[in-house]
């Protein structure tokens, strides 16, 4: 049993070392990777790129100054251009009405770690037409399991009448309980309340609102075979659409307000599990920026959602840079409890690419063997230790010396 106890401690030590040594390594050696920032210029009709703090170019790589860059992007730098007096009166024949500029400006962002994250299962359903200037947080929260339950927060009791009323409303619109996905803006900080978009267990899409205490349910027509893996509701001044949706096939859709039309945007496929998404909207364009670990893809759309331009750039990830290559030659893998791509805590195991680390492990094995030989140790007692070194490399070497192999039987 002593031997088993030792191997367990070695295992624990290897896990601990596999977390902390790489962490230490990256803290010392990691260099920041400058990812380019790009926006579509409604003036020069191409993408303008800002790399780092000193480099501004156009899509063809022509350098320009910061001032020129900002002048090419009046919708992004409206305030700055107004202040320096360089904002044009009109662009592309359209006079610049500040109110219109402000109304059309929108920004939506979806980070990878927001997609793979614990989701709340209770939501506040706001009164959409309270008649009050400010939205008020309701007294109850709802959940959708086998029916809709409204639970009063102060008493933790189910409000039967309201629950039955809303459950019936959903049921009569063809809702199939339980809900698979509930998406909305559960905050008072929005201009008005548009309720929630809900996906039921049969991948049907519903819109739920509360108007003067009564449920308003609208079933959205979806073409066969289409389902959604993520819905991001928005509160934009132009009130063009309710939400951005990401389909099961990683396509980006919008759902228009009032007539519930699902429109697919002609942009690159986007996987919310591995890429960050940013969508900038302004008077002249929508810009969809999809950022992966090693590349960025930008798509520019016209106001009627036609694709007008794209741009792609890639760079080396930290694993592909020198520090990363050295890392992959020394360490067989890295363990981490957290990940940039998720809010969940897991045992994130990242094996090193290539096989250089295996060579290094063999070197360590040879050294260990020599060390045993010098001490005239009985090799048959050390086979498992050598196996540990061969597999876990430097972590194993440290662990087997921390918990010494000194047995007397």
């Amino acid at each position, binding site marked *: *049993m*002593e031997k*088993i*106890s*030792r191997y*367990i*401690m070695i*295992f*624990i*030590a290897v*896990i*601990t070392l596999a*977390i*902390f040594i790489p962490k230490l390594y990256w803290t010392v050696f990691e260099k920041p990777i400058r990812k380019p920032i790009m926006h579509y210029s409604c003036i020069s009709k191409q993408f303008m790129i800002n790399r780092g703090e000193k480099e501004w170019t156009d899509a063809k790589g022509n350098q320009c100054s910061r001032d020129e860059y900002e002048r090419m992007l009046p919708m992004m730098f409206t305030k700055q251009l107004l202040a320096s007096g360089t904002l044009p009166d009109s662009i592309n024949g359209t006079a610049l009405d500040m109110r219109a500029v402000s109304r059309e400006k929108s920004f939506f962002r979806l980070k990878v770690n927001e997609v793979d*994250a*614990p989701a*709340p*299962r*209770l*939501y*506040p359903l706001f009164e959409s037409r309270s008649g009050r200037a400010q939205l008020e*947080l*309701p*007294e*109850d*929260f709802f*959940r959708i399991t086998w029916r809709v*339950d409204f*639970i*009063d*927060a*102060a*008493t*933790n009791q189910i409000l039967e009448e309201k629950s039955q009323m809303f459950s019936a409303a959903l049921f009569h619109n063809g809702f199939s309980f339980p809900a698979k996905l509930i998406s909305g803006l*559960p*905050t008072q900080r929005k201009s008005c309340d548009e309720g929630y978009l809900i996906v039921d267990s049969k991948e049907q899409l519903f819109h739920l609102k509360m108007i003067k205490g009564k449920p308003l349910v609208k079933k959205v027509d979806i073409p066969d075979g289409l389902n959604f893996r993520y819905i991001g509701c928005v509160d934009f001044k132009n009130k063009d659409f309710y939400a951005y949706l990401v389909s099961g096939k990683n396509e980006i859709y919008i759902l228009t307000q009032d007539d519930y039309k699902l429109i697919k945007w002609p942009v690159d496929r986007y996987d919310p599990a591995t890429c960050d998404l940013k969508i900038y909207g302004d008077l002249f364009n929508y810009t969809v920026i999809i950022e992966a670990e090693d590349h960025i893809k930008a798509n520019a759309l016209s106001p009627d959602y036609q694709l007008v331009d794209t741009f792609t750039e890639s760079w080396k990830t930290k694993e592909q840079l020198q520090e990363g290559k050295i890392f992959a030659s020394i360490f067989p893998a890295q363990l981490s*409890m*957290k990940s940039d791509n998720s*809010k*969940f*805590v*897991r*045992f994130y195991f990242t094996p090193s690419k290539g096989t250089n680390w295996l060579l290094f492990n063999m070197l360590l094995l040879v050294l260990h063997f020599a060390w045993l030989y010098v001490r005239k140790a009985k090799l048959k007692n050390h086979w498992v230790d050598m196996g540990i070194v061969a597999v876990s490399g430097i972590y194993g070497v440290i662990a087997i010396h*921390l*918990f010494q192999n*000194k047995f*007397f039987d």
Partner: protein
Amino acid sequence: MWESVFYKEWLKIRWFIVGYTLLGILCIGYLFLTLKHNFAFTGGKNVWNTMLFQGHQFYSLFKYVPLAGGLVIAITQYLPETINKRLKLTFHLPLAENNGLLLMQAFGAGSLLIAFLIFGGLFTGFSLIYFPIEIVADAIITILPWLLAGFAAYFMAALVVLEPNRVFRFLYSLVGGCFLTIYFASAGTAAYGPANSGLFVLTVLLSIAVVFSAYRFRKGEM
């Protein structure tokens, strides 16, 4: 014979485990008194809202309570055994090799388990008064790694206290301390869901760690 070992361990730790359990209960009581106060002053809907959407955890005070319990019980159980090498008395008892020691471990871990069950039961019971099952379940998922850390701390502290060599005692403390951070990664409510089963396995594995130190103690390691 196990009753005798349990009896001896009880004599050693009884005031500490009872005192600790009472302190833990007081802590939980305090959490709920504060919660009740918040319900009255800010309103139930605001309390729920901050918990659901702003990541507020009304129980965060409890975070290191299980860890403290594990350390306290391990020290009160095993430190007296190392003074003048009294552990020799346990090894001389007519029990199979490690049984004496494992019985001691079982008692310590069992006492912690009872304390944690009391804490968990009270917490769950009171929470269900104020919150629906969804919020309570998420809270339990969040608290579970803290409880597991209490056991892990107990097992690792036993290993450290019994280790005869000073240098290795220090090194094992270091390894143990770093390892325990795995249970406390900064994360939101219910984020530990996927990791909890792995943590459970690791914690159970650690339960016989002490056998290694005890063996070194027995073989006269300096």
